[in-house]
């Protein structure tokens, strides 16, 4: 294979116009699967969350989960879609062991939601991304390929299948082709997936975590000469982070431009994004066109959402995330980047509730984005499950604000709270972590420090107030950090003045 010299991105995008399209799968956070009552918890032992329905055993019959239908309609409404007044599920037939039934229950020509849009902000400009359809289907099982050297399917001699995931409700969201974005196509793709993730998170229907696979994205890209017809598109899979969405579009634009420059043509194929290099590699192209032989699912009756139900769901939609973030950003007095970090950490709700419990915006944000975020990262848990509640964080900050704890002690108290030792005040008392406020003990410690450091004391007496820092440190050490540094400093200056 000959290597073609790649043009720079600016070069490529200067000569061609990109058309992109995104297909996103969202695993819903329902308690049970879409068509049976099996639980959906992540990380269970293999094949412990399956039953005759999701195994497709003879005689079993599926019944749709109302919560899954409702979540799909709410997603459709939040994306400004029309909701079908009547539609059916369909069987997508294919031969692959990730579905024991040999078909996936999906939707075909009658999706539940159609024709919507999402407005995304790219560099302060609004770009409207059209939504073609939102439909409901079920997730597949997980296959593990063994026997090969790499664990990949190539060279594997057999596959081991776990059907715990098979049947979990999955919502597929397909955009219309996005044109006219020019050089900003990669940023638009990323901004769209970000906005989509935030909207779905605000609905509370999925935890939308790309790294855990509850939000998955396929990116279609094609190039054409200005004014010409759209080019052949490729579909890039394995795009597992927001950053990867942007990189995948970018590298595919460069790769396709190089091929077209050399007089070549683009093969319509599935490509796989490579996280390490940032480029895409060809999957095996299929010899024959896929033929899924879709037909209406006979075991599930049609879905005909009651207009009153849909109207109520529409009325109950939460505030749009972008609007909400702008409002909170202003109220909290922070910049856009800081707000984005808060959003990415899943801390918006927690900080809001901490403020509602009496903390200042800065105090609330400090704990959630500092100590607690670090801890959540280390233990691989959600911030919400890190072990502290908004009320406890507010109480902690109150203890700091009223001088009962200094910053260092507050961290130790928080550690106790997270360890389940109780509320901050209780932890402070039980561990004896309160700031030494007994003026007698503090004065004694200050006098001791002055006596032990006559040189420094002399400097301070001469007006070199900055030297007090050394004495403060000495007192803090003597009180094992349990004094309020500011109070110590004042006391030192007071003892040495006059």
């Amino acid at each position: 294979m000959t290597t073609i010299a790649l043009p720079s991105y600016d070069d490529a995008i200067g000569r061609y116009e990109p058309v992109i399209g995104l297909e996103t799968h969202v695993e819903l956070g329902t308690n049970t699967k879409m068509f049976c009552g099996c639980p959906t918890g992540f990380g269970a032992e293999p094949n412990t969350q399956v039953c005759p329905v999701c195994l497709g055993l003879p005689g079993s019959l599926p019944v749709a989960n109302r919560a899954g239908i409702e979540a799909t309609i709410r997603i459709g409404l939040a994306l400004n879609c029309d909701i079908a007044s009547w539609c059916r599920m369909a069987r997508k037939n294919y031969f692959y062991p990730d579905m024991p039934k040999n078909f996936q229950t999906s939707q075909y020509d009658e999706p539940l939601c159609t024709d919507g849009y999402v407005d995304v902000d790219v560099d302060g400009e609004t770009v409207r991304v059209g939504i073609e359809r939102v439909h409901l289907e079920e997730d597949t099982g997980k296959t593990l390929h063994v026997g090969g050297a790499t664990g990949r399917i190539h060279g594997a001699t057999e596959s081991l299948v776990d059907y715990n995931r098979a049947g979990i409700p999955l919502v597929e969201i397909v955009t219309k082709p996005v044109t006219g974005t020019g050089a900003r196509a990669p940023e638009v793709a990323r901004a769209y997936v970000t906005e989509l993730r935030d909207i779905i998170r605000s609905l509370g229907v999925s935890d939308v975590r790309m790294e855990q696979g509850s939000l998955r994205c396929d990116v279609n890209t094609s190039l054409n000469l200005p004014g010409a017809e759209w080019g052949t598109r490729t579909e890039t899979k394995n795009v597992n982070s927001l950053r990867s969405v942007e990189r995948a579009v970018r590298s595919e634009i460069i790769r396709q431009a190089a091929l077209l420059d050399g007089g070549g043509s683009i093969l319509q194929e599935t490509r796989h994004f490579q996280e390490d290099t940032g480029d895409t590699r060809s999957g095996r192209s299929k010899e024959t066109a896929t033929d899924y032989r879709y037909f209406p699912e006979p075991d599930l009756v049609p879905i005909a959402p009651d207009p009153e139900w849909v109207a109520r769901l529409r009325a109950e939609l939460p505030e749009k995330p972008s609007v909400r973030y702008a409002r909170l950003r202003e109220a909290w007095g922070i910049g856009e980047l800081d707000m984005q970090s808060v959003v990415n950490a899943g801390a918006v709700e927690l900080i809001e509730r901490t403020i509602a419990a009496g903390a200042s915006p800065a105090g609330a944000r400090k704990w959630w984005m500092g100590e607690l975020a670090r801890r959540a990262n280390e233990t691989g848990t959600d911030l919400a499950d890190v072990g502290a509640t908004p009320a406890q964080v507010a109480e902690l900050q109150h203890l700091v604000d009223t001088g009962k704890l200094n910053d260092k002690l507050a961290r130790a108290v928080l550690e106790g709270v997270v360890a389940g030792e109780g509320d901050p005040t209780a932890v402070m008392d039980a561990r004896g972590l309160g700031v030494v406020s007994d003026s007698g003990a503090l004065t004694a410690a200050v006098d001791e420090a002055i006596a032990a450091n006559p040189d420094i004391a002399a400097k301070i007496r001469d007006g070199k107030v900055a030297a007090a820092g050394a004495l403060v440190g000495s007192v803090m050490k003597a009180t094992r950090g349990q004094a309020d540094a500011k109070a110590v400093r004042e006391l030192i200056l007071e003892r040495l003045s006059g």
Partner: protein
Amino acid sequence: MSAISREEVAHLARLSRLAVTEEELDRFAGQLDVILQSVARVGEVTAEDIPPTSHSVPLTNVYRDDVVQPCLTPDEVLAGAPDQAEGRFRVPRILDEEE
């Protein structure tokens, strides 16, 4: 005229991952033809005002609540598996498709 060609039978066999011999292609084409012709007779009585029927019962919106029900035990689950390993179904590797 036959409703299904030999090539179509070969295509269906490929989709179903069935190894069908040349001789079987002819035989199945004939058999499937009888089935399809029989089904096609339904078309003779369809009328303009009757929409295609996918469901024989006039029901819509049959749902269940999102409440967990008991699952099968791992032994029950794997009882019907042709082979198993590590609590999983063991199947031959799949040649034609990439995940």
